[in-house]
């Protein structure tokens, strides 16, 4: 852990100093950051659960409802055309943000919906009894349970890619699991508990050699890394708008075009068809094939505003800033008596899980809450990983573009208060 500052992550990283990131300027864009909680300034360190929203996003949603609201892909009227243009423009923006084609971006309700879509539509089509799905032990339940469901339906089995004591994916173990029956490899880009960044390039190369596809949960990487999906070469990638400074209720699925083309619809309804007869229907090409029903248009517009907003950032500076923040946090937290950081994190996004000797994470979380510090306590929808590390839960602090060193110091001081309460 002490090496963290010296070990550069594998993702593109800046050589520039963290000072290149103007955190005060960014904070001014987020109205909620000026509020108080329990009589103290809010210290928001729960960004892995959801990020706060900049004014640009909030205003875009309001503007849409005040002057642009109509259904998309339906009406002949001007307003509907405007809404459709706005909606499709966001697809274009998202494609640009992730360096893929517009036709490879499917809007979904979020990461969970996107992963279920892949599992049911792709998995449900290709999996045969005896086929294998490799899922890592550090997955969020949303990249595990959908695979269990489809495995049960198809007779495939789910095999576990182990996690090392250091909190990294065991690549040698992964290689041993890869076999002729491996069809799908489901892995997170960055752990929502450990922050560990997984080497998707290497995983994808190994999986592709065996003819398996790679499904990546990008919920925690998209907000912290400048993710280039062509470069990491995964087959599917899911993420949520609300962790990327956008609204809730909207996320996306990237799928390689050739794979999306061969997938059947997930849900049926309006907007996803080519022609409907009483006895049978034909379906629209992707991405519309997977967007049945009226989509969350305002949320898509809000997501577009979020992507535009973050595209305005100097990402090299941001990644350098966050890496510096997490290194500083590790240094300070390691000095807290009775505290253990989960995972060695030589390579991680700014997400940290800690456990405290003899103090349950919920109790620590409540004490921190009383000080206006918002952290997450619990199993973080990653029960297998909790079991792997033999803990009932952890206390998780997760940072973002507006997190300051002063907030990390407040967290460390708060943990001192936690110790005092439970030393009585």
């Amino acid at each position: 852990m002490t090496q963290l500052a010296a070990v550069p992550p594998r993702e593109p990283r800046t050589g520039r100093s963290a000072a290149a990131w103007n955190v005060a300027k960014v904070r001014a864009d987020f109205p909620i950051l000026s509020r108080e909680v329990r009589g103290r300034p809010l210290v928001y360190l729960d960004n892995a659960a959801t990020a706060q929203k900049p004014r640009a996003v909030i205003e875009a949603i309001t503007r849409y409802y005040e002057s642009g609201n109509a259904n998309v892909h339906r009406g002949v009227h001007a307003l509907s055309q405007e809404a459709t243009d706005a909606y499709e423009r966001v697809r274009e923006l998202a494609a640009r943000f992730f360096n893929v084609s517009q036709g490879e971006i499917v809007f979904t309700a979020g990461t969970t919906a996107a992963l279920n879509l892949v599992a049911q539509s792709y998995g449900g089509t290709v999996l045969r009894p005896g086929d294998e799905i490799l899922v890592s032990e550090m997955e969020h339940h949303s990249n595990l349970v959908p695979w269990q469901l489809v495995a049960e339906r198809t007779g495939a089995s789910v095999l576990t890619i182990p996690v090392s004591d250091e909190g990294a994916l065991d690549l040698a173990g992964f290689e041993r699991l890869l076999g002729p029956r491996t069809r799908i490899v489901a892995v997170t880009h960055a752990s929502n508990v450990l922050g560990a960044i997984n080497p998707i390039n290497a995983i994808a190369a190994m999986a592709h050699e065996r003819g398996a596809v790679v499904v990546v949960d990008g919920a925690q990487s998209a907000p912290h890394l400048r993710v280039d999906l062509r470069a990491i070469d995964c087959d599917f990638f899911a993420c949520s708008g609300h962790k990327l400074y956008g609204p809730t209720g909207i996320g996306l699925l990237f799928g390689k075009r050739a794979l999306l083309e061969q997938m059947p619809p997930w849900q049926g309804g309006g907007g996803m068809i080519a022609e409907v007869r009483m006895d049978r229907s034909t379906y629209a090409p992707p991405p519309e094939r997977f967007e049945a029903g009226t989509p969350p248009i305002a949320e898509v517009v809000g997501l577009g505003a979020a992507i535009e907003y973050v595209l305005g950032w100097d990402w090299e500076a941001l990644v350098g800033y966050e890496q510096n923040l997490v290194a500083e946090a590790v240094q300070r937290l390691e000095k807290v008596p009775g505290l253990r950081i989960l995972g060695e994190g030589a390579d991680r996004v700014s997400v940290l899980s800690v456990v405290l000797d003899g103090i349950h994470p919920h109790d620590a979380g409540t004490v921190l809450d009383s000080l206006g510090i918002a952290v997450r306590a619990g199993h973080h929808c990653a029960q297998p990983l909790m079991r792997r590390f033999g803990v009932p839960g952890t206390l998780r602090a997760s940072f973002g573009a507006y997190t300051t060193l002063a907030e990390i110091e407040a967290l460390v001081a708060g943990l001192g208060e936690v110790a005092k309460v439970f030393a009585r």
Partner: protein
Amino acid sequence: MTQRGSGEAGSELDELYQSLILDHNRAPRNFRPLENANRHAEGRNPLCGDVYEIWLRLDGDVIAEATFQGQGCAISKASASMMTQAVKGRTVAEARALFDRFHELVIGAGSQGSGVGASTPLPAKLEVFRGVSAFPIRVKCATLSWHAMKAALDGKTE
């Protein structure tokens, strides 16, 4: 008390983590399986992962013994510990009434009791859980073992 924050939040926190609660958390009472139990239930909060098992031995209509085991936060563990003490020696109807009184206490409601309930006040020391009402998100922690106790009474037999 400690020199923690002197503001509102600090005093709410002192209310929540009273020394009796910390004591029961550190040294839970009746913390063991009960071999000759005739009622058993598990209480699980899937959102946070807290899990407790409750064992009761009913002697006719009276709860002769109550024990528990499991893991969770200080609030849930202390609550389970003190629940086992509170229901021991009570009739089933009294234990159910205590459940209602305790629930009212932690959600900060006034007593809605009538019938048996009204004549079954909470043991005074359970008043230490009144502080939970300032932290609504922790109500489930405080009531987890109580729900399990009720489920055990509702007939989950081992």
